[in-house]
Protein backbone atom coordinates (compact mmCIF):
# COMPACT_ATOMS: atom_id res chain seq x y z
CA UNK A 1 0.00 0.00 0.00
CA UNK A 2 1.59 3.26 -1.17
CA UNK A 3 1.64 6.47 0.89
CA UNK A 4 -1.09 8.10 -1.17
CA UNK A 5 -3.43 5.22 -0.45
CA UNK A 6 -2.85 5.50 3.27
CA UNK A 7 -3.65 9.23 3.07
CA UNK A 8 -6.82 8.45 1.13
CA UNK A 9 -7.85 5.82 3.64
CA UNK A 10 -7.21 8.15 6.58
CA UNK A 11 -9.23 10.91 4.88
CA UNK A 12 -12.07 8.50 4.26
CA UNK A 13 -12.08 7.39 7.90
CA UNK A 14 -11.97 10.99 9.15
CA UNK A 15 -14.84 11.91 6.80
CA UNK A 16 -16.91 8.99 8.01
CA UNK A 17 -16.38 9.78 11.68
CA UNK A 18 -17.05 13.53 11.23
CA UNK A 19 -20.23 12.85 9.25
CA UNK A 20 -21.46 10.30 11.76
CA UNK A 21 -20.79 12.72 14.62
CA UNK A 22 -22.52 15.64 12.85
CA UNK A 23 -25.52 13.45 12.09
CA UNK A 24 -25.62 12.24 15.66
CA UNK A 25 -25.76 15.85 16.86
CA UNK A 26 -28.46 16.51 14.24
CA UNK A 27 -26.37 19.18 12.48
CA UNK A 28 -26.88 17.54 9.13
CA UNK A 29 -29.88 15.82 7.75
CA UNK A 30 -29.61 12.08 7.15
CA UNK A 31 -30.28 12.66 3.48
CA UNK A 32 -27.04 14.60 3.06
CA UNK A 33 -25.15 12.46 5.55
CA UNK A 34 -25.91 9.41 3.44
CA UNK A 35 -24.36 10.96 0.32
CA UNK A 36 -21.12 11.77 2.11
CA UNK A 37 -20.95 8.42 3.86
CA UNK A 38 -21.32 6.59 0.55
CA UNK A 39 -18.57 8.77 -0.94
CA UNK A 40 -16.27 8.13 2.02
CA UNK A 41 -16.87 4.39 1.86
CA UNK A 42 -16.13 4.31 -1.88
CA UNK A 43 -12.90 6.30 -1.38
CA UNK A 44 -11.91 4.04 1.50
CA UNK A 45 -12.59 0.95 -0.62
CA UNK A 46 -10.41 2.18 -3.48
CA UNK A 47 -7.67 3.19 -1.02
CA UNK A 48 -7.50 -0.38 0.26
CA UNK A 49 -7.87 -1.96 -3.18
CA UNK A 50 -6.28 0.51 -5.64
CA UNK A 51 -5.91 -2.19 -8.29
CA UNK A 52 -9.72 -2.44 -8.50
CA UNK A 53 -9.86 1.26 -9.34
CA UNK A 54 -7.08 0.92 -11.92
CA UNK A 55 -8.73 -1.98 -13.70
CA UNK A 56 -12.04 -0.14 -13.59
CA UNK A 57 -10.38 2.85 -15.31
CA UNK A 58 -8.81 0.62 -17.95
CA UNK A 59 -12.06 -1.22 -18.51
CA UNK A 60 -13.84 2.10 -19.19
CA UNK A 61 -10.97 3.15 -21.47
CA UNK A 62 -9.22 5.79 -19.38
CA UNK A 63 -5.48 5.53 -19.94
CA UNK A 64 -4.44 7.37 -16.81
CA UNK A 65 -6.55 6.21 -13.81
CA UNK A 66 -6.21 9.45 -11.77
CA UNK A 67 -7.95 11.28 -14.67
CA UNK A 68 -11.04 9.20 -14.02
CA UNK A 69 -10.90 10.17 -10.37
CA UNK A 70 -10.67 13.89 -11.24
CA UNK A 71 -13.54 13.82 -13.74
CA UNK A 72 -15.82 11.83 -11.46
CA UNK A 73 -14.99 14.09 -8.50
CA UNK A 74 -15.69 17.30 -10.45
CA UNK A 75 -18.99 15.99 -11.83
CA UNK A 76 -20.06 14.79 -8.43
CA UNK A 77 -19.26 18.11 -6.74
CA UNK A 78 -21.12 19.93 -9.50
CA UNK A 79 -24.17 17.81 -8.85
CA UNK A 80 -23.93 18.47 -5.14
CA UNK A 81 -23.73 22.25 -5.78
CA UNK A 82 -26.82 22.16 -7.98
CA UNK A 83 -28.60 20.17 -5.35
CA UNK A 84 -27.65 22.70 -2.67
CA UNK A 85 -28.78 25.65 -4.84
CA UNK A 86 -32.09 23.91 -5.27
CA UNK A 87 -32.37 23.36 -1.55
CA UNK A 88 -31.50 27.01 -0.79
CA UNK A 89 -34.08 28.25 -3.28
CA UNK A 90 -36.76 26.16 -1.66
CA UNK A 91 -35.79 27.29 1.82
CA UNK A 92 -35.72 30.95 0.76
CA UNK A 93 -39.19 30.67 -0.71
CA UNK A 94 -40.51 29.10 2.46
CA UNK A 95 -38.80 31.68 4.66
CA UNK A 96 -40.39 34.49 2.66
CA UNK A 97 -43.85 33.00 2.96
CA UNK A 98 -43.32 32.47 6.68
CA UNK A 99 -42.16 36.06 7.16
CA UNK A 100 -45.25 37.32 5.31
CA UNK A 101 -47.54 35.11 7.35
CA UNK A 102 -45.93 36.32 10.58
CA UNK A 103 -46.35 39.96 9.55
CA UNK A 104 -50.04 39.42 8.79
CA UNK A 105 -50.65 37.40 11.93
CA UNK A 106 -49.03 40.08 14.05
CA UNK A 107 -51.26 42.65 12.38
CA UNK A 108 -54.45 40.72 13.11
CA UNK A 109 -53.27 40.19 16.67
CA UNK A 110 -52.77 43.93 17.07
CA UNK A 111 -56.24 44.53 15.64
CA UNK A 112 -57.75 42.17 18.20
CA UNK A 113 -55.88 43.72 21.12
CA UNK A 114 -56.49 47.36 20.21
CA UNK A 115 -59.66 47.83 18.14
CA UNK A 116 -59.25 50.97 16.05
CA UNK A 117 -62.87 51.97 15.63
Amino acid at each position, binding site marked *: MAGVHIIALVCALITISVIVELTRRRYIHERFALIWLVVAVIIGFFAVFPEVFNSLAHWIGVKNPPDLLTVVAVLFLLLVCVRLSWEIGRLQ*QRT*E*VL*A*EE*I*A*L*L*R*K*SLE*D*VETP*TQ
Partner: protein
Amino acid sequence: MTDAKTLVVIPAWNESSSIAQVIGEIRHSNTDVDLLVVDDGSSDSTGAKARAEGVDVVTNPFNLGVGGAMRVGFRFALSHGYDAVVQVDADGQHDPESITLLVEQLDDQVVPQMVIGSRFSGEQTYDASRTRRLAMRILAASLSRMSGERLSDVTSGFRAHNRKAIALFATEYPTDYLADTVESIAILTRAGGKISECPVAMRQRTTGKPSQSRWKSLIYLVRIFLVLGLTVFRKRTVRTAENESTSGSS
Protein backbone atom coordinates in the same frame (compact mmCIF):
# COMPACT_ATOMS: atom_id res chain seq x y z
CA MET B 1 -65.63 50.33 -11.20
CA THR B 2 -66.34 53.59 -9.44
CA ASP B 3 -67.63 52.45 -6.05
CA ALA B 4 -65.01 49.78 -5.49
CA LYS B 5 -63.81 49.12 -1.96
CA THR B 6 -60.24 50.16 -2.50
CA LEU B 7 -57.08 49.50 -0.53
CA VAL B 8 -54.01 51.59 -1.23
CA VAL B 9 -50.93 49.54 -0.44
CA ILE B 10 -47.72 51.44 0.23
CA PRO B 11 -44.63 49.25 0.41
CA ALA B 12 -42.14 51.23 2.47
CA TRP B 13 -38.53 50.52 3.32
CA ASN B 14 -36.71 53.23 5.25
CA GLU B 15 -38.93 56.03 3.98
CA SER B 16 -39.44 57.85 7.26
CA SER B 17 -38.75 61.24 5.68
CA SER B 18 -41.56 60.99 3.14
CA ILE B 19 -44.09 58.47 4.43
CA ALA B 20 -46.19 60.89 6.51
CA GLN B 21 -46.46 63.36 3.65
CA VAL B 22 -47.37 60.64 1.15
CA ILE B 23 -50.11 59.32 3.45
CA GLY B 24 -51.43 62.85 3.97
CA GLU B 25 -51.59 63.54 0.24
CA ILE B 26 -53.34 60.26 -0.53
CA ARG B 27 -55.92 60.92 2.17
CA HIS B 28 -56.43 64.46 0.94
CA SER B 29 -57.35 63.48 -2.60
CA ASN B 30 -58.98 60.10 -1.87
CA THR B 31 -61.41 60.21 1.02
CA ASP B 32 -63.01 56.82 0.44
CA VAL B 33 -59.98 54.53 0.25
CA ASP B 34 -58.26 52.57 3.02
CA LEU B 35 -54.51 52.71 3.41
CA LEU B 36 -52.13 49.92 4.30
CA VAL B 37 -48.45 50.64 4.83
CA VAL B 38 -46.27 47.55 4.58
CA ASP B 39 -43.18 48.40 6.59
CA ASP B 40 -40.69 46.12 4.90
CA GLY B 41 -38.21 45.64 7.71
CA SER B 42 -37.24 49.30 8.00
CA SER B 43 -34.46 50.20 10.40
CA ASP B 44 -35.73 53.76 10.77
CA SER B 45 -39.02 55.11 12.12
CA THR B 46 -41.09 54.45 8.97
CA GLY B 47 -43.53 52.16 10.78
CA ALA B 48 -43.98 54.44 13.77
CA LYS B 49 -44.57 57.49 11.55
CA ALA B 50 -47.16 55.62 9.52
CA ARG B 51 -48.93 54.45 12.68
CA ALA B 52 -48.95 58.00 13.97
CA GLU B 53 -50.97 58.92 10.87
CA GLY B 54 -53.56 56.37 11.93
CA VAL B 55 -53.28 54.00 8.99
CA ASP B 56 -53.03 50.21 9.09
CA VAL B 57 -49.42 49.08 9.25
CA VAL B 58 -48.09 45.58 8.66
CA THR B 59 -44.47 45.08 9.67
CA ASN B 60 -42.34 42.49 7.90
CA PRO B 61 -39.83 40.87 10.27
CA PHE B 62 -37.03 41.58 7.80
CA ASN B 63 -36.62 43.16 4.39
CA LEU B 64 -38.35 41.09 1.71
CA GLY B 65 -38.20 43.58 -1.14
CA VAL B 66 -41.11 45.31 -2.87
CA GLY B 67 -42.40 41.97 -4.15
CA GLY B 68 -42.64 40.46 -0.68
CA ALA B 69 -44.22 43.62 0.68
CA MET B 70 -46.83 43.64 -2.07
CA ARG B 71 -47.66 40.00 -1.50
CA VAL B 72 -48.41 40.89 2.11
CA GLY B 73 -50.63 43.72 0.84
CA PHE B 74 -52.49 41.40 -1.54
CA ARG B 75 -53.06 38.81 1.20
CA PHE B 76 -54.37 41.51 3.52
CA ALA B 77 -56.72 42.78 0.80
CA LEU B 78 -57.88 39.26 0.03
CA SER B 79 -58.73 38.42 3.63
CA HIS B 80 -60.44 41.77 4.18
CA GLY B 81 -62.55 41.57 1.04
CA TYR B 82 -61.30 44.51 -0.96
CA ASP B 83 -62.39 44.98 -4.59
CA ALA B 84 -59.26 46.79 -5.68
CA VAL B 85 -55.66 47.22 -4.61
CA VAL B 86 -53.62 50.20 -5.73
CA GLN B 87 -49.88 50.10 -5.23
CA VAL B 88 -48.36 53.48 -4.48
CA ASP B 89 -44.68 54.07 -3.79
CA ALA B 90 -43.68 55.61 -0.47
CA ASP B 91 -41.21 58.06 -1.96
CA GLY B 92 -43.85 60.42 -3.29
CA GLN B 93 -43.24 60.01 -7.01
CA HIS B 94 -46.79 58.82 -7.69
CA ASP B 95 -49.43 61.51 -7.83
CA PRO B 96 -52.27 60.45 -5.50
CA GLU B 97 -54.74 62.40 -7.64
CA SER B 98 -54.46 59.61 -10.21
CA ILE B 99 -55.50 56.77 -7.89
CA THR B 100 -59.20 57.06 -8.76
CA LEU B 101 -58.25 57.30 -12.43
CA LEU B 102 -56.60 53.88 -12.25
CA VAL B 103 -59.38 52.26 -10.22
CA GLU B 104 -62.05 53.56 -12.61
CA GLN B 105 -60.39 51.64 -15.42
CA LEU B 106 -60.80 48.31 -13.66
CA ASP B 107 -63.82 47.11 -15.63
CA ASP B 108 -63.47 43.36 -15.52
CA GLN B 109 -64.73 40.96 -12.87
CA VAL B 110 -64.06 37.69 -14.64
CA VAL B 111 -60.33 37.64 -15.26
CA PRO B 112 -57.40 39.17 -13.35
CA GLN B 113 -56.91 42.75 -14.42
CA MET B 114 -54.19 45.28 -13.83
CA VAL B 115 -54.07 48.95 -14.79
CA ILE B 116 -50.61 50.47 -14.88
CA GLY B 117 -50.08 54.16 -14.32
CA SER B 118 -47.62 55.03 -17.06
CA ARG B 119 -45.30 57.98 -17.04
CA PHE B 120 -44.47 57.74 -20.73
CA SER B 121 -47.83 57.71 -22.44
CA GLY B 122 -48.84 60.97 -20.81
CA GLU B 123 -47.24 64.29 -20.04
CA GLN B 124 -43.55 63.90 -19.34
CA THR B 125 -42.40 65.36 -16.09
CA TYR B 126 -40.10 62.46 -15.31
CA ASP B 127 -36.50 62.14 -16.28
CA ALA B 128 -34.53 58.89 -16.46
CA SER B 129 -31.02 58.00 -17.58
CA ARG B 130 -30.51 56.97 -21.20
CA THR B 131 -29.48 53.39 -20.39
CA ARG B 132 -32.45 52.95 -18.16
CA ARG B 133 -34.79 54.37 -20.79
CA LEU B 134 -33.41 52.00 -23.40
CA ALA B 135 -33.77 49.07 -21.03
CA MET B 136 -37.34 50.02 -20.35
CA ARG B 137 -38.14 50.36 -24.04
CA ILE B 138 -36.84 46.87 -24.83
CA LEU B 139 -38.74 45.45 -21.89
CA ALA B 140 -41.89 47.27 -22.89
CA ALA B 141 -41.64 45.96 -26.43
CA SER B 142 -41.27 42.33 -25.36
CA LEU B 143 -44.00 42.53 -22.74
CA SER B 144 -46.32 44.21 -25.23
CA ARG B 145 -45.81 41.26 -27.53
CA MET B 146 -46.47 38.86 -24.71
CA SER B 147 -49.64 40.52 -23.49
CA GLY B 148 -50.96 41.76 -26.82
CA GLU B 149 -51.42 45.20 -25.33
CA ARG B 150 -49.36 48.31 -26.04
CA LEU B 151 -47.37 48.90 -22.88
CA SER B 152 -44.82 51.64 -22.51
CA ASP B 153 -43.97 51.73 -18.82
CA VAL B 154 -43.66 48.19 -17.51
CA THR B 155 -41.50 49.05 -14.51
CA SER B 156 -43.97 51.53 -13.10
CA GLY B 157 -44.94 50.62 -9.54
CA PHE B 158 -48.15 52.63 -9.74
CA ARG B 159 -50.83 50.01 -10.41
CA ALA B 160 -54.41 49.07 -9.73
CA HIS B 161 -55.58 45.44 -9.45
CA ASN B 162 -59.05 43.93 -9.45
CA ARG B 163 -60.33 41.15 -7.18
CA LYS B 164 -59.15 38.32 -9.40
CA ALA B 165 -55.68 39.86 -9.66
CA ILE B 166 -55.57 40.28 -5.88
CA ALA B 167 -56.35 36.59 -5.43
CA LEU B 168 -53.75 35.62 -8.02
CA PHE B 169 -51.01 37.82 -6.62
CA ALA B 170 -51.71 36.89 -2.99
CA THR B 171 -49.81 33.71 -3.74
CA GLU B 172 -48.08 34.32 -7.05
CA TYR B 173 -46.57 37.78 -6.77
CA PRO B 174 -42.86 37.50 -7.59
CA THR B 175 -40.34 38.45 -4.95
CA ASP B 176 -37.29 38.71 -7.17
CA TYR B 177 -35.54 41.95 -6.32
CA LEU B 178 -36.40 44.69 -8.86
CA ALA B 179 -37.83 42.20 -11.32
CA ASP B 180 -41.19 42.03 -9.57
CA THR B 181 -42.89 44.74 -11.63
CA VAL B 182 -41.95 43.10 -14.90
CA GLU B 183 -42.50 39.51 -13.90
CA SER B 184 -45.92 40.26 -12.44
CA ILE B 185 -47.07 41.42 -15.89
CA ALA B 186 -45.86 38.14 -17.36
CA ILE B 187 -47.60 36.12 -14.63
CA LEU B 188 -50.86 37.99 -15.09
CA THR B 189 -50.70 37.50 -18.84
CA ARG B 190 -50.08 33.78 -18.44
CA ALA B 191 -53.05 33.52 -16.11
CA GLY B 192 -55.22 34.93 -18.90
CA GLY B 193 -55.52 38.36 -17.33
CA LYS B 194 -56.05 41.80 -18.81
CA ILE B 195 -53.50 44.59 -18.68
CA SER B 196 -53.92 48.17 -19.70
CA GLU B 197 -52.08 51.41 -19.26
CA CYS B 198 -53.26 54.76 -18.09
CA PRO B 199 -51.21 57.93 -18.53
CA VAL B 200 -50.34 59.64 -15.27
CA ALA B 201 -47.96 62.41 -14.32
CA MET B 202 -44.97 61.33 -12.28
CA ARG B 203 -43.01 63.58 -10.00
CA GLN B 204 -39.37 63.46 -9.12
CA ARG B 205 -39.09 61.40 -5.99
CA THR B 206 -39.04 63.71 -3.01
CA THR B 207 -36.47 61.64 -1.14
CA GLY B 208 -34.25 58.64 -1.60
CA LYS B 209 -32.05 57.53 -4.44
CA PRO B 210 -33.37 55.97 -7.64
CA SER B 211 -32.96 52.21 -7.48
CA GLN B 212 -30.45 51.95 -10.30
CA SER B 213 -27.16 53.36 -11.46
CA ARG B 214 -26.29 53.19 -15.14
CA TRP B 215 -24.03 50.17 -14.72
CA LYS B 216 -26.56 48.38 -12.61
CA SER B 217 -29.31 48.80 -15.16
CA LEU B 218 -27.34 46.63 -17.58
CA ILE B 219 -27.14 43.78 -15.09
CA TYR B 220 -30.77 44.47 -14.27
CA LEU B 221 -31.73 44.11 -17.91
CA VAL B 222 -29.90 40.80 -18.28
CA ARG B 223 -31.50 39.48 -15.10
CA ILE B 224 -34.95 40.60 -16.12
CA PHE B 225 -34.76 38.90 -19.48
CA LEU B 226 -33.67 35.74 -17.74
CA VAL B 227 -36.66 36.04 -15.43
CA LEU B 228 -38.97 36.75 -18.37
CA GLY B 229 -37.65 33.78 -20.28
CA LEU B 230 -38.14 31.59 -17.25
CA THR B 231 -41.68 32.82 -16.66
CA VAL B 232 -42.72 31.54 -20.05
CA PHE B 233 -41.62 28.00 -19.22
CA ARG B 234 -42.03 28.08 -15.48
CA LYS B 235 -44.52 25.89 -13.75
CA ARG B 236 -46.96 27.74 -11.59
CA THR B 237 -45.63 27.53 -8.06
CA VAL B 238 -48.14 26.54 -5.44
CA ARG B 239 -47.79 28.52 -2.26
CA THR B 240 -49.55 27.91 0.98
CA ALA B 241 -52.15 30.62 1.40
CA GLU B 242 -55.25 28.64 0.58
CA ASN B 243 -56.73 28.99 4.04
CA GLU B 244 -55.89 32.68 4.08
CA SER B 245 -59.50 33.85 4.30
CA THR B 246 -59.84 32.39 7.79
CA SER B 247 -56.98 34.37 9.30
CA GLY B 248 -58.41 37.84 8.60
CA SER B 249 -60.02 39.75 11.40
CA SER B 250 -63.12 40.99 9.61
